[in-house]
């Protein structure tokens, strides 16, 4: 378990333990990784974050085109594993969770503990930080590298 925001670790660890999820990824709506469990390579993690955000963005747009409220949860059920993708609001903005689970657990179980995770994250979230100065390209690269070091312990 690795997290850029340390207060996320407790609730996410509980969720992973109780739901028996294989992989879990929390990110902002723009794809910045907040915490992860089970990913071993930076490339996989970044690809999963980008794809997860893309799926949520495109499905939100589909819902908008159909004049439906946005989808809350998307599930891709595979033979060996399933992907559970959900967007939710926190005091820190809109976040997205990507969970991969196998036959050792069930969608209903993941959903129940996910709802609990969202509640715990909302309760544990510290107030949003003060607005920051303008972000430069160099700062962005530095921050990205720092996040990857935190998320992979390198």
């Amino acid at each position, binding site marked *: 378990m690795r997290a850029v925001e340390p207060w996320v670790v407790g609730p996410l660890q509980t969720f992973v333990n109780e739901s028996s999820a294989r992989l879990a990824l929390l990110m902002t709506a723009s794809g910045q990784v907040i915490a992860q469990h089970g990913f071993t390579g930076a490339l996989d993690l970044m690809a999963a974050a980008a794809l997860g955000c893309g799926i949520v963005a495109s499905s939100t747009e589909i819902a908008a085109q159909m004049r439906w409220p946005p989808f809350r949860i998307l599930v891709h*059920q595979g033979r060996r594993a399933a992907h559970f993708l959900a967007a939710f609001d926190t005091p820190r903005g809109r976040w997205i969770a990507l969970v991969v689970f196998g036959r050792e*657990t*069930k*969608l*209903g*179980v993941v*959903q*129940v503990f996910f709802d609990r995770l969202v509640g715990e994250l909302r309760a544990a979230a510290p107030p949003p930080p003060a607005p920051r100065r303008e972000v430069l390209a160099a700062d962005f690269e530095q921050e990205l590298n720092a996040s990857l070091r935190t998320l992979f312990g390198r």
Partner: protein
Amino acid sequence: MPNYQPHLDALTRIRDIRGAMVVATGDGLVVAEKLMAGVESQPLAAMAASLAGRAADLTERSGYGLPRFLQLQCADGTLLVATGGPELVLVALAGRDAPLGLARLELLRLAERLA
């Protein structure tokens, strides 16, 4: 889609049966339910399907095949779970005063119909 409601009505007419559900085995989601107010269906359905799945693993490893019926006796009531074929699980919540034999019979009867 099959209408499960008459079956659930028959189950919940039994004294002190506080609710009954048909749950999808594969994903643990509720297919049909009739529960007393205040009983949350989704966590219960998910856990019951998970329990039935684990029990099936256990009994299959023991060489006894799939379990037909589970009875979880607790301090304040009993959880009854029956398998209705490979895709459905039936769940009933019985209070302390429920006639468990009758509830079991009705649950197994329903399970046979669904199998």
